[in-house]
């Protein structure tokens, strides 16, 4: 019979459970990775570099256990919420840094780059939509992205955006109407 002390056995078991959690988390993250990138792009004004940075931070936060999935919503919805908050925090930091640099006579980097980004322009697919979306309020852009791009319901979109369902519905209705008008105008031109 083995004479290994019980605390050591428990520690080994805990380590195994943690490793399992890590593997499982990675598997789940990988499964929704493409969707996360799309959402991160929407949260970062369609700047792919910013979106990558945000995703790195989010994956670190999740894998380190600083953000824990509690099972109250789907994993994807929960992760979208983490991405939104991380992007918002990053935007605030960038704004403050820009403010300091501006004080020192440097030019501040625009918060949401206009859709004249070289990468964006080189890709003609969806360009009309991107241009039209750029004319909407940020909340309207986000709720429309979550509903049409990510196929979430308005209720789920509200959970991701941390707002009431009523507010989300208002943003959704106004954004959709405005986007339809903008796309109609672009088609007529």
């Amino acid at each position, binding site marked *: 019979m083995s004479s290994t002390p019980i605390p050591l056995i428990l520690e080994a078991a805990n380590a195994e459970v943690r490793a399992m959690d890590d593997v499982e988390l990675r598997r789940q993250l990988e499964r929704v990775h493409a969707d996360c990138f799309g959402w991160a792009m929407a949260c970062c004004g369609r700047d792919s570099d910013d979106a990558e940075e945000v995703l790195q931070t989010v994956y670190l936060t999740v*894998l380190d256990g600083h953000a824990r999935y509690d099972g109250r919503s789907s994993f994807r919805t929960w992760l979208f919420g983490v991405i939104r908050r991380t992007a918002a925090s990053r935007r605030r930091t960038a704004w403050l840094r820009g403010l300091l640099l501006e004080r020192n006579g440097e030019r501040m980097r625009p918060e949401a780059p206009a859709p004249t980004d070289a990468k964006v322009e080189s890709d003609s697919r*969806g360009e009309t939509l991107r241009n039209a979306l750029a004319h909407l309020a940020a909340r309207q852009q986000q709720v429309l992205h979550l509903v049409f*791009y990510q196929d979430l319901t308005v209720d789920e979109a509200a959970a991701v955006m941390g707002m009431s369902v009523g507010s989300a519905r208002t943003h959704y209705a106004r954004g959709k109407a405005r986007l339809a008008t903008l796309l109609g105008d672009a088609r007529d031109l």
Partner: protein
Amino acid sequence: MTMMDERELRRSFEQLREADRDRVPGFAQISERARTRRRLRVPQRLRPLVIGAAVVVAILSFFQARGRSLAPAAATPAITTWRAPTDVFLTAPGIELLGSMPTLGASVLDKMIPTPSNKGT
């Protein structure tokens, strides 16, 4: 807005999603960068130590700089014996002419020209 419009809207978003799919960086790539960042980061339990050390260094530097500015210089000369290093420029030829008050009706050159009264002296 008609249903047709909504379908069109969905199609536009679908096109955007397809365009984005081509640009999605691999999960492994993002994950690896995140892991590198984690390795570079100071471990959570060491952070108070690092912050404490930084504060101590800052305080020591402050007091060291303050002490240096307050300490008197080692060989400070007394004001009565001190001579300005530029004093040498004040001695010029003919400076003695300006050393005394001129008198009315006299010339500054009188002091230089030998007179019968001071010739013998």
